[in-house]
């Protein structure tokens, strides 16, 4: 128990202060940091090259400079990232990758070259049609291009063996994360919504090897604890991300238990297990091709609604909480579709519009509270 508490504190603190955690990780590992824009990038290659991959998921800077480049109807992650880029917050990074999951990201990539001239981002072109006979080759070609660019930056090519090792480590990490989300659902009073998020987020700032050991230890410690219940509803959370912490605190205060998530920043990163056969690069490519129910990849049967229904059923949840990230087109497009499917299945939905920088989450407090009350009556 005390070990669990210790690890929870350590990891959640790490997740709560990205800057300090990155600095600490760099110092401890002696590695240079490499920035990774959302949503998914081939982190294994970056790791294999000897860098410390770190996630760049926005923040809350005062917006001053970005208005010279991007209008206000852009999502706040990209506006924040750009602001921090221009401000010099990312100058310490040895490299930076910006993928192309949406029109806003493509535009950010274009602007980055002029707005932050000393940081040359490596673009990563994302596949959307994953069902073509050309899909695998295309992803492999993108991985090869990326590998080459990272190798050039590093001054030496990234070896096959290093990629194999990094991939094995990442698969181990991902398995541990899947286990963690299950373990957390068993003890929702200990792993509150806020802590759950911070612990998962910490992985973006800590060396994966170090982090994986810790999360495995935490999983073990949690397994030794008796099962817990909270008085609030059991829910599945879906969306791009669930932040800021003050927003999650509202769930914690109202006794919500997060039984599982379909968040891009959380489970979508690790829910798909790699195939067993093939080289590390092939297995990386297949992970992309095999990811289901994810708005950031085109899918002709659009299985997200079905997936959410199944998640609710399997975890015995009462409802789905939608964290709709303002101006995120892909997420906004999915909502009407899965909403209809959840409505038809009689699954209640709590729809909340969020931004990373929310001056006040108070307006959401009542909604989160009354949703819990409503569910307790039904």
């Amino acid at each position, binding site marked *: 128990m005390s070990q669990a508490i210790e690890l929870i504190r350590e990891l959640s603190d790490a997740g709560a202060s990205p800057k300090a955690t990155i600095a600490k990780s760099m110092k401890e590992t002696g590695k240079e940091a490499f920035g990774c824009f959302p949503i998914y990038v081939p982190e294994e290659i970056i790791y294999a090259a000897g860098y410390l991959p770190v996630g760049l998921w926005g923040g809350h800077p005062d917006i001053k400079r970005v208005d*010279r*480049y*991007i*209008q206000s*109807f*852009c999502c706040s992650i990209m506006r924040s990232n750009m602001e921090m880029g221009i401000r010099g917050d990312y100058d310490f990074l040895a490299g930076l990758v910006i993928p*192309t*999951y*949406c*029109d*806003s990201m*493509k*535009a*950010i*990539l*274009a*602007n980055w*070259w*002029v*707005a932050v001239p000393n940081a040359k981002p490596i*673009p990563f*072109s*994302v*596949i*959307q*049609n994953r069902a*073509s*006979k*050309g*899909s695998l*080759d*295309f992803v492999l*070609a*993108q991985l090869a*291009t990326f590998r080459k660019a990272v190798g050039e930056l590093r001054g030496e090519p990234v070896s096959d063996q290093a990629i194999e090792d990094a991939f094995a480590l990442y698969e181990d990490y991902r398995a541990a994360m899947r286990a963690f989300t299950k373990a957390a659902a068993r003890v929702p009073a200990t792993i509150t919504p806020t802590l759950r998020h911070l612990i998962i987020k910490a992985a973006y700032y800590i060396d994966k090897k170090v982090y994986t050991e810790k999360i495995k230890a935490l999983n073990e410690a949690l397994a030794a604890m008796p099962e817990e219940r909270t008085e609030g509803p059991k829910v599945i959370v879906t969306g791009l991300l669930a932040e800021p912490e003050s927003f999650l605190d509202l769930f914690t205060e109202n006794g919500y238990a997060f039984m599982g998530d379909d968040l891009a920043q959380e489970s979508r990163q690790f829910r798909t297990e790699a195939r067993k056969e093939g080289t590390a690069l092939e297995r990386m490519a297949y992970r992309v091709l095999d990811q289901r129910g994810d*708005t950031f990849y*085109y*899918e*002709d*049967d*659009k299985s997200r609604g079905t997936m959410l229904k199944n998640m609710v059923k399997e975890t015995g949840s009462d409802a789905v909480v939608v964290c*709709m990230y*303002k*101006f995120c*087109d*892909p997420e*906004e*497009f*999915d*909502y*009407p*579709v899965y*909403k*209809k499917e959840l409505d038809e299945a009689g699954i209640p939905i709590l729809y909340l519009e969020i931004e990373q920088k929310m001056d006040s989450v108070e307006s959401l407090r009542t909604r989160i509270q009354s949703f819990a009350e409503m569910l307790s009556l039904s």
Partner: protein
Amino acid sequence: MEEKKSSKQILNELLAKHYADAKNAKEEGKPVVWSTSIAPQELLETMDVAVVYPENHAAAIGARKDASQFIASAESEGYSYDICSYARVNDGYANILYSEAENMPKPDMLFCCSNICMTVIKWYENIAKKFDIPVIFFDTPYSGSYQVDPSNVKFVEAQLEEAVTMLEGLTGRKFDYDRLKEVMQISNETASWWKKATDLAKNKPSPMNGFDMFNYMAPIVCFRGKESGRELFKIWYEELQERVEKGLGPWNDGTEEKYRVLWDGIACWPYLGVTYKVLKKHGINVVTSMYPESFALLYEQHTLAGMAEAYDSLYVLRNVDYAIDKYLNLSRDFQLDGGIFHSNRSCKGMAFKQFEIQRQMESQLGVPSVIFDGDQTDPSVFSEAQYETRVQALVEMMEARKGARR
């Protein structure tokens, strides 16, 4: 003797026929396809499949100021106000299937090419789910470089091959590659006439009223692969050429072309009249935009590989240097006095590059410009007062520049 029809008349007739043909096909039990605007229509034309274009359709609805009911329908399903209004209008239309403007029959298949934006990917995915129909999807990935990445082109080519198979399945007929060659030939020629016609605006004064170009955008999308389209654009070209020879400017009422500007972004369809009149009042003529090039889809090789390359080469798929070069070239070639940038709330991909493009045009060539808020179909964004003030400011900047040169 029958009087020769003007290209305008032909255009209107062709558009009426376009929607009627789709309706007839549906009634005869033949498949109808909904397609994005710059998709490999050559394949559909080769298979003689009826096709309609939701973007054009939404624009027509917007121009009739009729978008609100469709937008409301989409929003009642949970569509956000932040989503591209073409997609919202089309989703609403998919629910209602009737408009006072034009009508598209319910689709049997979708045709989606992501070379214009990534928004269409989600949009078409949703429509496919709504109607439970298949999509032929051409994923044209972004090349983060000036030149197009060959591995992207290979990928697009593979998808074109698969599309052929899917179309054979849909129609129960064999794909005729000889016919494809013909269609490609026609498409290339139509695109060339379109380009030649829009290039005539390089003349001073321009023989073309730029808002007219907006009217010809529907036919270049709908009829690029058809002989009727080739004929239309040839006639349009000849009409404009005749005006050039006679020294005629854009307007027939004696208004002089005082300023030549680039219009960036899609038109503000619900306010087409207003946006036009304010410009004309000041003698401002729109002489170009990025559309002439985007629709001028030309391929050197008349093969699937050639097509793949052409469809994957749009400027939005390349890096910012490429886009900036294009704008600078337009500025020089069309002797621009200024630019009007439509900060289109619907079109994030285009909008989020405008500030930098404005700066580059100004700093590299001294071409001033203004930006105004609007939306291509949603009538709730545009403000006439703001637009007027911005245009007024542009006039002053352009005057100052002319003064400095004199």
